[in-house]
């Protein structure tokens, strides 16, 4: 039978034996590789009603900028087949309120935090990183994710992540502000001709890891009004429909690392993960950790459910350690 799916059932092994721990740098041992995705989980309190946010490998907060921001007008979302468009406009309280309120709360419940930071200029990123570093709950931080998919005010609003030089500059300035045991993850946009070029520029500039992928630029039209559906005209496309793009991006960059074109750093995979099987695709492609974004809107406890499913799938496949499965589809064993 020549089919695209092997329907063979694997013998179900006891799953308690899979060691899910992972170290993404800085000596912070995460109990497991599952995380929320920035902007899809707010800053913790809301999801803590559904599961204990300290059960996650890390909690990724909504990208925070220097000042409070109202974000865009509405509508801010449109449903699309197996996905959605959003145009929130980085609404948020600003870094001062974040470190005074959100971070201490996350600390208080025992969460490991990967704060996501953003800016309209490289100095804004640096300022946000510095404020974070100086904060009283900084102990909870196990790394910083730099959302470079922001419009660069100095360059006609061109998104940093579309330009290797601009991306590198942001990463280098943020890296300078943070202690060495805090790994910096650059979060890449898939909307580029060559994602390995941006990845290389970020790693060269000091990124200790990469998060892939942010949303795809998309748009939807309200055909009743015959005008753009979103208040912000274009928006970010996310959800299961984009998973093949995320798998490809992770694969390409991990492949470039195997081939020595980019120094090897951990990759956090994100994009369209809804089930443990989806997570395993990204892991096999080369991701050392997994974020669950849009799927949370469908199932508020998706991140912990995906963790359970992933653990079981790894057990069924005979993996003793999660890290042994990272990059396995490249056919080279452990990265």
């Amino acid at each position: 039978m020549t089919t695209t799916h092997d329907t063979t059932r694997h013998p179900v092994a006891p799953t308690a034996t899979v060691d899910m721990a992972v170290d993404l740098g800085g000596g912070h041992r995460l109990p497991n590789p599952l995380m929320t995705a920035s902007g899809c989980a707010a800053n913790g309190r809301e999801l803590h009603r559904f599961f204990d946010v300290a059960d996650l490998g890390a909690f990724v907060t909504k990208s925070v900028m220097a000042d409070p921001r109202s974000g865009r007008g509405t509508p801010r979302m449109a449903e699309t087949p197996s996905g959605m468009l959003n145009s929130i406009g980085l609404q948020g309280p600003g870094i001062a309120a974040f470190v005074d309120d959100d971070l201490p709360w996350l600390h208080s419940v025992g969460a490991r935090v990967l704060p996501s930071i953003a800016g309209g200029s490289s100095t804004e990123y640096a300022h946000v990183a510095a404020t974070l570093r100086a904060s009283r709950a900084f102990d909870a931080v196990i790394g910083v994710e730099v959302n470079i998919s922001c419009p660069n005010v100095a360059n006609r609003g061109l998104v940093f992540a579309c330009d290797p030089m601009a991306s590198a500059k942001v990463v280098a300035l943020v890296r300078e502000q943070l202690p060495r045991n805090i790994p910096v993850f650059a979060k890449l946009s898939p909307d580029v001709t060559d994602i390995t070029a941006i990845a290389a520029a970020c790693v060269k500039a000091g990124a200790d890891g990469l998060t892939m992928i942010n949303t795809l630029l998309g748009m939807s039209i309200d055909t009743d009004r015959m005008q753009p559906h979103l208040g912000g005209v274009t928006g970010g496309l996310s959800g299961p429909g984009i998973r093949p793009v995320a798998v490809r991006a992770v694969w390409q960059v991990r492949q470039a690392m195997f081939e020595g074109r980019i120094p090897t750093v951990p990759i956090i995979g994100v994009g369209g993960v809804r089930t443990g099987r989806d997570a395993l695709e990204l892991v096999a492609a080369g991701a050392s950790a997994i974020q669950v974004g849009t799927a949370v809107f469908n199932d508020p406890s998706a991140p912990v459910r995906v963790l359970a499913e992933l653990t079981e799938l790894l057990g069924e496949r005979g993996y003793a350690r999660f890290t042994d499965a990272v990059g396995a589809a490249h056919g080279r064993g452990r990265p």
Partner: protein
Amino acid sequence: MSPAPLRARVTQEVAEVIATKRVGAYQHLTLVAPGVAELARPGQFVALAVGGETSGTLLRRSFSIHKVSPSGTYGGTVEIVVSAVGAGTRWIVERVPHDTIDVVGPLGKAFPLPTEAVPCVLVGGGYGSAPLFWLASELRERGCHVEMVLGAASEDRLFGVVEARRSCDGVTVTTDDGSAGQQGWVSDVLPGIIGRTGAGVVYGCGPMGMLGSITRIAEAHGAVAQVAVEEAMACGVGVCMTCVMPVVGGDGRTRMVRSCVEGPVFRGDRVRWDAFDGGRARVPDDAVGAPKVGGH
């Protein structure tokens, strides 16, 4: 007023449909959801997942809780009233008894109840009346005189006229086309009713334009308006920031607040009605963190 806490308890359960019946233009569903039934208060809502394993519609659909029965033959039940307008609501109204639907709830803040026995007017537009009957009973239990105004485009889009007569001290019906009750809008009859009853609170649920005019009328008569809004929601649980609207806070400043957790019930005079236009809400220039000219 005793507002419900912002982050009340919530549950997620796979609910069995035990009854579904056509009521005018709507479908009235009864779901076995004991966890939701136990926790819910009038004005809160539930968010339902749509489609099964092969579904391409990822986002939940929100519905006001029409009624809860915390215990019974099947365990606690939750009732909702659904108007089929798109793919998701069509899927929901096609469910038959014994089908299951994944439910998250109760969500949002409930209608605040007056601490004293003041007369109240409850105004429902279309299926917007769904959560009001339960509210009416609670208000009458507290000794309030309760009148209800039900308005819709036409008779088939009214919901609960009979139930209203049972649960309220007075009922007025309006339809745009005069097919039932008085021809016209709820705003035509509301001033008279507030005047006659001396209402202290006007509760409203329905289209945004209606809620705006209820608020203006209540204000003009010295009453407080409490309105349940309906913004497009991607998550319903407070994590996505899509359901925001400009609302004035206790400090007098306008913020884009999440209607799923800080609403759906708002004090009418706090809502920046001036920012709404044709289904869109602008960010008012004076809102906290509003884009500066030439800025973001």
